[in-house]
Every structure is written in C-alpha cells, then in structure tokens.
C-alpha cells in the first residue's frame, strides 16, 4: 500500500504522456454532461425551424407564408430580406452562400425561410405550410454529369506539377489509365447542429453554438447582424461530435438564431431534426479520379498524371482547400518522379460539401493507392511489393520530393510497414488466403497492407496560430481556457495535461472551461488535426510566462539564483526548501505577481504559394499502416472484416488512451465511408439517404472481428511539437483503405488475380457483387 503523503508524492496525476481518461467521462456515462440542448433555457425562449424548399434548382416565383404565420404559437417568419445587414455566410468570402435562399433555389432542401415559434414542434409543423411557386431550372447533381457537361467550378482549381509527366508517360515501359469513383460521406455526429442565441444590451448577443469554429460563428453573426465582432460572444463547452461537419456548417443556425433573438429580444434556439440536418448541411466531397500512370517491369512508377474532380455542391464553402488537400495526398506515401495533378472543384445542385476528417486527403490517397493496385495486378505481383518499391526514400535519397516540392524529412514509413508486416504475419496469411480461395467456391478472402502519410498543418498558413488564457488563483487552483473546441477527441484533457505538467500540479487542480471568443480571440477552427499541436503549445506558453514571473519572484524573495528554483510535484523547490504550490502562489499574490497570462503559438517553418504550387505547407507528416483481412460472399457481395492490425505513429503520445481511441474510431469511421455509407440522390435531386434508417454507418457488429491497434512507441516527432507528439485526429482515418483493397483482392480471386477489380467506393455489397460479376463475365 502506498503510504506516501501528499507532500512526499513523487509524481503528479495526469502529466503529459499518461493514459488519462477523458475529462468528462464520468459525466458522459451519468448523463450529466451538458450539450447545448441540455442547458436550461432562459425564460421565454423561442424555437426556430427551417423552411425548406423541394426543388434542386429553381427560381422562386412567389412564396406565400400566410398559413405559416397564422399557425397558433408562431411568433414570426424570417426570409432573406429580414437579415439586418447581409444574407451571406460564405466561409470563402466569395459571397455565394445565402443564409436563406433569395429567389433562387440551388439544392433540394435549401432553406428559404425560418419559422420562430413558442415550441419547436409548432415551428416544425408550421414550416411545412408554406406555398412556394417555382420555375424549375435544369439541375445537375451527379459528378459525372457535371464533369462531362462542363459544369463551372466553384473556386479556382489547383495544379501540382514536377518534372515532365506527359513525356515520361510516353516513354515508360508500361502505361495504364483508369477512372475511380469515390463516394462522399455524411458526418453523422450524434448531436445534430444546434444554436441558442441570447440577446444582450445594445448590440450585444451571446450565442451558444455546437461549432468547431467559434470565431467564424462570431464573424458570421456580426456580419449578418451588421454589428462589430466585439458585440458577439460565441461559446461552446462540448459538441456531440464534429468530424469537420461543424467547421462552417453551424453558421446558418447561429445566424438565424441571432437575427431572431435580436429582432424579438428573446432567446431563440435552433435545433434541426436529424433529417433536416442531413439535408441542409454539407458532407464529404465525392470525387471522380482519372489517372494515367507509367511504370516499369518491376513496378516502379515513372510518371503519374491525375485529375481529381469533386462534387462541391452549389457554393464554394471549403471546397478550394479540400480539393487542394486531395492533391497534396494523391501521392500517398510514394515518390512520383514526374507528376502532374489537377483539381476540378465542380459546381452541382446539391448541398455545399464541406470539411470532413481528412479534408480531401483521404480521397486523394484512395486514388494514389488505386494506382498501386493497378500496377500490381497488371504485373501479377503483391501490391505490397509495389508499395515498398515506390515509397519515398530517406531524406537526401533523391526520392524525397513531393509533387508540391516539399522535402519529406521525417520519413518513417519503411519501419512502420516492415514492423507491421512482421507482427501481423502478412506474408504467411496472404499465402494461406490464396490457398483458401483456390478451394472455396462461394466465400473468398482478401488481405491488404496499406500505408498512411498525412501532412499536418492548415494549408492556409495564417490559420496555424492559437491562443490560451491561463489564470492561477490565490488558492493555487488553475483556470484553463484556449481557442480549441472539444468534440470528443480529448483535446481539453490533453491541454490540461500540458498545464498540469508545466506547473507540476495534479490535474485535478486544473479547471477546464468552455471555449469562448470572449477569452481567447481570433481562433482557428479546431480542425486539420491541429488542436493539441496548436492549443497545447499556446497553453504551454501561457504557463511558461507565469512560471517566469514566479521564478523571478522566488529568486528575489528567497535571495537565490533562478537555477535553484524548480517546479516539482505539487511544490516549488527553492534551494532545499519545498514550498507547497498553493502556499507559494499565495505568497506570490501578496507580492503582486501577475498570475494570469495569455499564451500564443504559431507553427514555424511553413509556407505555401498556391499560384506556383510550391512550398512547405506541412510542418511534419504523421505515418501509419494497417493490414486488413476480409471475407466476401461471391453470391451476394456481402462481406465481413475478419481481422485488422494497425501500427500508427502519433509521435510521443500525449495520452495513449485517447490516441488509441482516436485511431480505432477513425478506422471504423473510415471503414464506413469505404463500405456501407452511401449517399443517394434521386432523379429530382433529392437526397434520399438522410437519416440512419437509410444511411448506414458502422455498428459494433461491423467493426473488425479481431482488432489489434498499436501505437509506434518508439516514434517521436522530429519537430519541436508539444511533448514531441503528433496530431492524431485525421491520419488514422485513411488506414481502412486496406479494407477496400482487401475486398478488392477477394473480388479479384474470381479471375485468378489477373485483373484489377476497380472496385469503387463505397464498396457496398452491391458494388462487390457487381465487380465479381464483371470479372467473371470478362474471364468467361
């Protein structure tokens, strides 16, 4: 039994690198963690509902809202003309995204008015009573239709080029071309969007918003209302999931709640129903990739040319940076000696697509891995052999330059892959599977090992900054605030660990507080996996400032050198004297030491010139690899994921428990994207998979039956990140590309692996069966 007293304890609870539980875990399990809909409503709170259109592309000739207004309990109805200053909430500032459709409908479901009523039920029912007269215009929802019929782009395309791809494609011993369809994805955060606006004095307003980007909500609300940013305070303690879906898509609900709240001087809450949320907010972009690759007999790539066309929806939103990031990851982990990559961010009459975990990167990488698969089947080799042949080399090898001219300096993919190949017994299992497939008529198996290399940093350099506000109170307790938001990823926990570690106090002394634009201004979205890198460093900086002042104070008070002063577990050590942290702080207070600091951080080294397609957009790369084994039923296309082994690099983990959770969760979410999650629009341009009854995310019984997830414990970030850790949110999302490729191998078995099955995503049972049929027919 541990008999040590508090004073003697050698370590603190919750330092960096410890497997601490999520700070809200006990509240999650007992139902006491408050989400925005759980916060007590101010007296007289009103409720809003969207009035949605039912045309994909149409002119609104007239809108009769008299029956809506006449419903008992309806307080007011808002249309575009009720926006006090502006009807625009375009995150790209291209003025292409109205709060409410103003005369023109550009996707089926686009809101044209909003109802404010005494209850949510009244508002929702009233919203269906509008009489809108339309003049239909031709609509285009499908990406292929958009591509083939010259749809306009929503934002400027990007080209990445190095060497002479055209010439080298001609010269290469082998050349093949192909096309791949990659589906989009609904975020399906369990908590739908929500905003509650509470009016204040003069022009002031406070908005509780389920958002990953409080500063943007602040800017949009101020823009729509026509008030300065200093009048708008945006707050969020936690979201019930985000995944990128709450980076820009909360703007509409927050803006409408704020406009109504100011107009009526009452609190107003907007909480769309799941169907409304899925219909009215953007999703992951689907892509059509056309690739052209030249390679030699061994399988070494000579040149790659690829075009990435994306269904962006009706407005630009974040489609520019999303399609850029697709190109940044079209190389996956491979060196392309000559390369030309182009993006086509196409306009369609669908809801505007947006950020989603990986931000285009996964689609880019799926395309890159398809190219590897094509080469392997063309040459009759194991795709893993082709992968190894084409991996980026070590720094200085001459094979370390990306298509955007950034040198890959921290390459650890060789070690990751070889360790995983051994620990997962890949070679033996692959042989056994090939043998199994020879004798099994209906059930076939497949296995694949795919790598991940993911660039970390916002490609918009300015976003790579963060702030934190730290107060130490007289009793030694610490108040932590930073610009990052908590959506379940454990950011608040990790940043609190940084602070506990910095001050060497138990983490129970650190109070984590809701994110608010009033405490830390001008924040970036909690996105691009950057949360702990940026906010952890900002909190570290705030602690550093306070500690500097405390050391100065102690040196003077105890008349000693600064080197003799250190922060030890729950104490400050001055010479040989140990002063309990709270007592020390009390003395510092009486000595008038400032015990509060605003920390700041900006990522070093990075720069990016989009016009030339050159730069160092990423501070570093995160790596990983997965081996997946699957079984398919060749009569129905049904499948199961039998086993998955993962080795993933998070640098020196800030919190291994949280990081393992991120890897496992990302894997299953990415697996859903590539397998059962299918967005389906009908011929009217209406999304018909708009609820969990029709849109199928993975269940517990879909996760890999055997699921071995390990962090590369030897890994350490080569750059000076917080605790030498690495970002973890997005990179593991791409590990389940191995599932898609394993399914593909199982399909390929019906034609003796002589042909690449070209299995598109999502590989629903239908796509698997149809690929089996295609291969069987071609073989016959």
């Amino acid at each position, binding site marked *: 039994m541990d008999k040590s007293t508090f004073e003697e304890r050698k370590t603190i609870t919750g330092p960096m690198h410890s497997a601490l539980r999520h700070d809200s875990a006990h509240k999650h399990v007992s139902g006491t963690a408050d989400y925005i809909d759980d916060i007590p409503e101010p007296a007289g709170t009103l409720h809003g509902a969207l009035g949605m259109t039912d045309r994909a592309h149409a002119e609104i000739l007239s809108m009769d809202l008299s029956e809506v207004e006449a419903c008992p309990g309806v307080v007011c109805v808002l249309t575009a003309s009720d926006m006090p200053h502006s009807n625009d909430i375009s995150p790209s500032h291209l003025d292409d995204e109205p709060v409410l459709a103003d005369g023109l409908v550009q996707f089926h479901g686009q809101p044209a008015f909003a109802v404010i009523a005494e209850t949510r039920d009244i508002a929702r029912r009233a919203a269906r009573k509008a009489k809108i007269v339309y003049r239909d215009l031709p609509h285009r929802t499908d990406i292929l239709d958009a591509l083939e019929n010259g749809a306009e782009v929503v934002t400027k395309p990007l080209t990445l080029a190095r060497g002479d791809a055209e010439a080298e494609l001609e010269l290469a011993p082998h050349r093949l071309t192909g096309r791949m369809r990659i589906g989009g994805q609904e975020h399906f955060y369990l908590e739908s969007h929500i905003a509650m606006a509470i009016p204040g004095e003069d022009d002031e307003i406070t908005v509780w918003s389920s958002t990953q980007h409080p500063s943007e909500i602040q800017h949009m609300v101020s823009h729509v209302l026509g008030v300065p940013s200093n009048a708008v305070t945006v707050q969020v303690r936690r979201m019930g999931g985000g995944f990128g879906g709450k980076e820009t898509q909360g703007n509409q609900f927050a803006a409408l709640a704020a406009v109504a709240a100011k107009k009526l001087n009452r609190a107003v809450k907007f909480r769309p129903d799941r169907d409304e949320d899925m219909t009215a907010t953007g999703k992951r972009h689907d892509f059509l990739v056309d690739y052209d690759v030249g390679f030699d007999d061994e399988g070494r790539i000579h040149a790659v040319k690829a075009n990435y066309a994306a269904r962006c929806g009706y407005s630009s939103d974040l489609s520019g940076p999303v399609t850029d990031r697709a190109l940044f990851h079209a190389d996956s982990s491979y060196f392309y000696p000559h390369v030309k990559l182009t993006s086509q961010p196409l306009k369609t009459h669908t809801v505007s697509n947006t950020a989603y975990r990986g931000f285009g990167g996964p689609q880019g990488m799926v395309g890159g891995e398809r190219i590897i698969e094509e080469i392997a089947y063309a040459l009759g080799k194991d795709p893993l052999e082709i992968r190894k042949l084409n991996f980026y080399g070590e720094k200085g090898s001459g094979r370390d330059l990306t298509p955007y001219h950034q040198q890959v300096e921290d390459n650890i993919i060789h070690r990751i892959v070889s360790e995983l190949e051994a620990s997962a017994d890949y070679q033996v299992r692959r042989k056994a599977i090939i043998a199994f497939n020879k004798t099994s008529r209906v059930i076939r198996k497949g296995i694949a090992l795919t790598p991940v290399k993911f660039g970390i940093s916002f490609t918009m350099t300015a976003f790579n900054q963060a702030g934190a506000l730290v107060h130490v109170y007289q009793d030694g307790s610490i108040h932590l605030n930073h610009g990052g938001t908590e959506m379940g990823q454990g950011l608040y926990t990790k940043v609190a660990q940084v602070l506990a570690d910095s001050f060497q106090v138990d983490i129970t002394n650190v109070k984590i507080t809701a994110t608010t634009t009033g405490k830390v201004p001008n924040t970036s979205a909690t996105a691009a996996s950057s949360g702990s890198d940026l906010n952890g460093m900002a909190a570290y900086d705030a602690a550093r400032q306070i500690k500097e002042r405390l050391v100065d104070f102690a040196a003077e008070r105890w008349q000693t050198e600064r080197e003799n002063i250190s922060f030890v577990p729950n104490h400050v050590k001055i010479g040989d004297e140990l002063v309990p942290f709270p007592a020390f702080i009390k003395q510092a207070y009486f000595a008038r030491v400032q015990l509060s600091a605003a920390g700041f951080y900006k990522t070093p080294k990075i720069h990016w010139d989009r016009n030339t397609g050159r730069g160092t957009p990423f501070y570093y790369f995160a790596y990983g690899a997965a081996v997946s084994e699957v079984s398919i039923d060749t009569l129905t296309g049904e499948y199961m994921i039998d086993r998955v082994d993962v080795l993933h690099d998070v640098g020196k983990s800030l919190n291994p428990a949280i990081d393992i959770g991120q890897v*496992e969760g990302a894997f299953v979410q990415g697996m859903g994207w590539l397998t059962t999650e299918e967005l389906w629009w009908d011929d009217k341009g209406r999304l018909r998979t708009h609820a969990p009854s029709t849109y199928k995310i993975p269940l517990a019984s879909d996760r890999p039956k055997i699921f071995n997830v390990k962090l590369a414990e030897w890994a350490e970030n080569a750059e000076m990140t917080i605790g030498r850790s690495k970002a973890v949110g997005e990179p593991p999302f791409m590990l389940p590309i191995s599932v898609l490729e394993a399914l593909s191998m199982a399909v390929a078995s019906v034609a003796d692996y002589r042909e690449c099955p070209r299995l598109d995503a999502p590989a629903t049972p239908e796509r698997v069966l149809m690929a089996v049929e295609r291969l069987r027919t071609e073989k016959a």
Partner: protein
Amino acid sequence: MTQSAGSIRFILNDRDITVTSVSPTATLLDFLRLEHRLTGTKEGCAEGDCGACTVLVGRLANGELVYESVNACIRFTGSLNATHVVTVEHLAAKDGTLHPIQQAMVDYHGSQCGFCTPGFVMSLYGLWLSKDNPGRADIEKTLQGNLCRCTGYEPIVKAAEAVASARPDALFDPIVKMRKEIIAKLAAMRSPDTIRLSDGDASLIVPGTAAALADLLADHPTATVVAGSTDVGLWVTKQMRNLNPVIFINGLEELQSIHETGDGITIGAGVSYSAAFDQISARYPAFGRLLDRLGGEQVRNMGTIGGNVANGSPIGDTPPPLIALGASVTLRSKSGPRTVPLEDYFIEYGRQERKPGEFVESIFVPNLPDDDHFAVYKISKRRDEDISALCGAFRIALDGSNQVTMVRIAFGGMAGTPKRAANVEAALMGKPWSEETIKAAQAAFEADYKPLTDWRATAAYRMLAAKNLLLRFFLETSGEKAELVRFEVTA
C-alpha cells in the same frame, strides 16, 4: 361495458407519475427532456435507429417484472400505463458513485464525445439485468440499436465484457433494490378498464381487454392502432402526422401469448420480436437468425410480429419466412374472428385484407416437418439494423429420390408486397434437386418479380442476388458453406 378512467400512471425512476392530459402523439423523450428536465436521454435521430434516447421500461409480464430497452423518441407517453421508466439519471448512487456499467465505460475509455453514451449505458444495463455472463455475440446483438460515431465500439465492447460476470446486486443496483416495491406498484396501476385521455381535440384510448378493443374499433374504424410504435412513431416524428384517436394495445396481455398446439404455434399480435425469439428460434432456426438481424434490440423489444404483418410493408422482414412456412393470420372485429392465409393478406402495395373495424389478433405458424429444408436470407447494405434490400425465404421437401415434392419461396423487397415466387416454384416442383435444376429455375425469377431501383439497391442487384440466393440455398442443403457468419453459435 367498459368504464372510463382518466389517467395514465407509471413510475419514472423513483417517482410516481400520473398523467391526466396528454396528446396521443406526445413522446416519452419529450416528456423526459422538456417536462422533467431529465436531459441525460438524448435525441439523435427521432426514428429509433441511433439509440441515443435509450431508456429501460419495466413491465409485468405473467407476473414477472421485466425491463426492456426502448427508444424513447418513438415511444408514446400514452403507452406507458403501469410501467417503470428508468433513465440514465437513475443509475448512479445518490452520493455520485457510478454504477458498475458506468464505471466500466469510464475505465475502458468507452466515451469520446459522450452524446451516445447514456444510450449505450442503458442498453448494456438492460443486457446486464437480463443475462448472466453475456458473451461477445450477446453484447454486439444488444448494441445493434446504438450508434457511436467516435470510438469504433471497441472500448465499449471491452467495457461490457469487463462487467459481464458481475451480477446485479442490491447494494448498488437501483432496480434490484426496489424490485418488490415496483412489482406491487405496477400491479396496482394496471387497469382492466379502458383508459381515455385527451388533449384538446385529440384523444388516446387504452383498452383493458381484446373485446374492448374490438368494440372501440367498431366505434372508431379510422383509429390508429399502435402496438410497438416502431413504425407509427415515425409517422409522428418524421411526417408530423396528426393521429386521432390512437388506441394503444401494447398493454393487452391477451394478445401477448404464444400458444403451442399440436400442429404449430399461434403468436398473439402483441408479442414483441424479443418475446417471440426463443420459441421461433427453437422451431424455425433460420427464422430465429433473421430476427437477430431485425432492427436493433430496442426495436425488437417494442415492435411486434403482428405489427410487421398488419402494416403491409413490402420490406417487412417477417412476412417472407411466414409465407414460406404457410402461416395464416386471424383478423378480429366486433362481429368475430376470421382467418386468411398470410400470402392472401397482402393485396397490393399499401392495401391489405384488413377491413375497417378489424385488427390483427394472431398469426398461426404451422410446424416445419423435420425433413423440410428451410432458410431465410436477408440482404442489406449493413448487416445489422438495416432494412432489407431483399429478403428471401426458401422451403423445400424432397422425396427419397431427391425430387422436389413441395416448394414455397417468398420474397420481400422484390415487389409491392411480400410475394411468392410462383414461377420459380413451378420450375423446381417435381424436378431433381440438382444444380442443373437450380440454374434453369433462376431465370424464372424474371417472370415473378420486377424489382425497383432505390437507395437500398438497384433493380439489377436485387434480381441477381435473388437468383443467387436460390443457389446459396441449394449449396447449403448440399452441405457447402455459402454464407458468412460472424459468430458460429448465436445466442
């Protein structure tokens, strides 16, 4: 003659609730969140598919107190008479000590964003109360109706396994502690009389007997009869229909029994999928395996086989096996019962044999002869808790020379109603049970069905898969493994 009683009485955690006025379509979820500020129960989808609103509802069944997980979002308040509603707030001790299930979820990092977590806790709690030492297959089945988008489920399943062997204990379990008291209270709350409540113009009726139900339907032929509300719930939450009056039959014990007769079983229309599971699995194992994949646990606890038949959906999962088994349905009205073969009950899309004033009273399923081959195959985008793209049931009998002497094949998802494959059957009848016969018969599907393309599957896939399922059936009768199974032995 029935008397009227004017209140719905139930227990909410540790409080007695009396409701004297409520809309027939008011949901339990709104009751919890808006009227009682029990905000631990979340709305994720409002259609019974995500499980964020999972609560337990305890009821007396044959004198036993059973607790079942349900989706509060599509459970109507009016259906709660004589029940014990248990929400996540009830689990932890008053001093804040977490229940073992909750503690395991914390210890195994089973929550990330936390929004789905109360629902998972309640689903696992329901399993924990009802089953000793559940295994991985039980846990996964229990969680079919709970979506988590953050964790990938691995830590949740590990948490469930960690507490599997711990048994409910009065020291820390709020339900076990109160069991006797709850039983007495619920017994006292039951009403043999018809309960009528109204809210403005809208009214709800809870009959105390099947005879009262028949009388009520004679008086209110347009009333909406609600058993499990797993379908009607969505008419309200998604389509915002006004239903008036609504007759809740979920409390009618007369409709909740399964009678074994010499030649088969009669399943009362109010028997839930969960309640029917053991007997159906024992008698028709392939049908039992289908029930394992129908809805999530909450839906199986609420929904009834009678309702699945009564609503006439072309994609209901139980009609194909029931038709293949030769089931019949008994309809009852004030003027008495009548029985029709189930395959004749479905007339066309949206139209059934049930006349105004009639209700489905029971379904009779004949015994399956030992030598018959019987299989049910459900094809869906996601294996569990998904609506069928197609669902086929196959049954044949062979004579000593391997000739087909009897064949019944029925499909859902291939036509406007659940429908027999008459041409395929004809192509098999009297033929040798061989792969050549199968190949020849496959073409006959084209004459039987003209499936549609929708978001679940294209017409081409439905047709191809239907044909291939016949081959699967043949291969399996020949002893070849032709279907993927996640766990070899199901619960």
